[in-house]
């Protein structure tokens, strides 16, 4: 039986998350002490060498992002570091667990990354609904400041860093990194055009590093234990661990961190206790609403960025929404498409009209359920058009669930 392997969640349950003293007793902030004695350049090389990939969904190499941000010129002399804690992808709650139960590991990761790229100002952009996480982070930041891990001359070095909390206000799109920058600047959440990327021109037009909560939480482990140890875990292309959040028709829904490459079967049956009421597995949605449907033929595929891609699926945020045999799969698709309709910002026509059109098609399908194949083709046609013409990744996302549903379930209709 596979076991959980914890890196981002390594301290969970080992200290009271509101007490930095308890955290220090279990060796907290050791990685910051090590890092601040190292040349920034070497830290970036360590992260590059670890092959750590972003855990926010896209899987971009974290070390490279740090390198680009470090090398970019800043006109004001400021560089920024931002933690993306917007966590709005349906089925995902891993970042919340880290922030509520181990806020200091996140701060440690941010402090090290800021030192490495030369950022002096940091922000945690967190969704407004996460009230417990917000309270916990506020406490943790104050405590870290009082102990000299944040503020001026951190640990008696020349390094200064301030971290502030910025609240979102109910927009999924603001989790997209460029839109996040707009929102953080106090504007409406309309996306910016890429490029430039944040590493070049980010917050207030200056070089900015944006990483997900879980990504930052890997850094202390890598600094403390070294890249060789880190790379022993996980797969060649995706080293380390991943937190999977499993929900729906399983006996033990919850969060499980395990080495990248565990199979869906292990996650559902060994960790999450199998299907509820001795039912049969029908489908899972991997990666959230901007994710993919899979059927039982994927149960033994290793869960990692590249292996899933080969199957037309995505790892995404690590969300796994499980459906048992008796669940109507079209109804889940409808719920997902309603989500996109609700979250479309309306700035560009293909997505504003397209997301409504997709829901309308589904509602027609409800009335005449005889021809699901035809509806599926219409949905795909519309979603492909949106993917080609929409301004930002949100409008390019509905194709993921639609295409995968067709791929895996079409012959059941």
């Amino acid at each position, binding site marked *: 039986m596979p076991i959980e392997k914890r890196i981002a969640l390594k301290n969970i349950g080992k200290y009271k998350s509101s007490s930095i003293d308890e955290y220090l007793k279990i060796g907290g902030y050791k990685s910051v002490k090590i890092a601040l004695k190292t040349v920034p350049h070497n830290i970036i090389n360590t992260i590059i060498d670890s092959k750590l990939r972003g855990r926010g969904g896209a899987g971009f190499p974290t070390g490279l992002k740090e390198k680009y941000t470090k090398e970019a010129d800043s006109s004001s002399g400021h560089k920024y570091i931002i933690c993306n804690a917007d966590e709005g992808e*349906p089925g995902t709650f891993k970042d919340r667990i880290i922030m509520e139960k181990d806020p200091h590991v996140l701060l440690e990761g941010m402090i090290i990354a800021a030192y490495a790229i030369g950022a002096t100002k940091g922000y945690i952009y967190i969704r407004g609904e996460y009230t417990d996480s917000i309270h916990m982070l506020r406490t943790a930041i104050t405590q870290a400041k009082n102990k000299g891990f944040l503020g001026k001359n951190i640990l008696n070095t020349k390094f200064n860093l301030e971290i502030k909390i910025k609240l979102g206000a109910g927009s999924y799109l603001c989790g997209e990194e460029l839109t996040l920058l707009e929102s953080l*600047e106090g*504007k409406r959440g309309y996306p910016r055009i890429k490029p430039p990327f944040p590493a070049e021109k980010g917050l207030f037009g200056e070089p900015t590093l944006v990483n997900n909560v879980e990504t930052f939480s890997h850094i202390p482990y890598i600094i403390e234990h070294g890249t060789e140890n880190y790379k022993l875990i996980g797969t060649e292309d995706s080293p380390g661990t991943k937190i999977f959040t499993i929900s*729906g028709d399983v006996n033990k*829904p919850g969060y499980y961190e395990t080495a990248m490459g565990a199979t869906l079967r292990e996650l559902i049956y060994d960790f999450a206790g199998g299907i509820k009421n001795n039912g049969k597995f029908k489908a899972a949605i991997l990666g959230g609403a901007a994710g993919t449907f899979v059927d039982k033929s994927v149960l033994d595929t290793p869960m990692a960025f590249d292996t899933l891609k080969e199957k037309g699926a995505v790892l995404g945020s690590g969300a796994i*929404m499980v459906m048992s045999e008796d669940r109507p799969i079209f*109804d889940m698709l409808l719920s997902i498409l309603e989500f996109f309709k609700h979250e479309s910002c309306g700035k560009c026509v293909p997505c504003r009209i397209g997301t409504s059109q997709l829901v309308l098609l589904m509602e027609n399908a409800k009335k005449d359920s005889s021809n699901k194949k035809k509806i599926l083709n219409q949905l795909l046609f519309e979603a492909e058009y949106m993917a080609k013409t929409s301004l930002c990744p949100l409008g390019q996302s509905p194709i993921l669930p639609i295409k995968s549903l067709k791929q895996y379930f079409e012959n059941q209709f």
Partner: protein
Amino acid sequence: MDKDEILNRFEPQQDNLLNILHELQNNNPNNFLPTEDLKLVAKYLNTSYSAVYGVVKYYTMFSLKPRGKYVIRLCKSPVCHMIDTNIVLQEIKNNIDIGLGETTNDLLFSVESSECLGRCAEAPVMMVNEKIHKELDSIKISNVLDSIKLNEQNK
């Protein structure tokens, strides 16, 4: 709390706008942002009223209209939807006789829908102001609502 007092806790910079709006709204007995607040904020940040208005309109957590003292946010994202949000809506309707987007006449409750609240392992869930209520069934929902009503009567 006095509104100026709230404003003065923030540097007068545009990037503090969302934090300020949250704070003002949380301190408003009817969970909303009246026009005078938007004007106040615009002046404080040295920006236009329309810029502030545009932001408030964009974000779903902010309201320009008075809401109940208790705002119920019901998750209707896929997992909660699948486990059963209808039961939650129905029970709320039975108990306080309002549906999505409505406010009770006594201005005690408003009901809104929300996307995934990050508690999918405990679906279906709803938030009442800052507090999460999970693994909802008819009994839990009526307990939550009844205890709020009772509390308010005894005030």
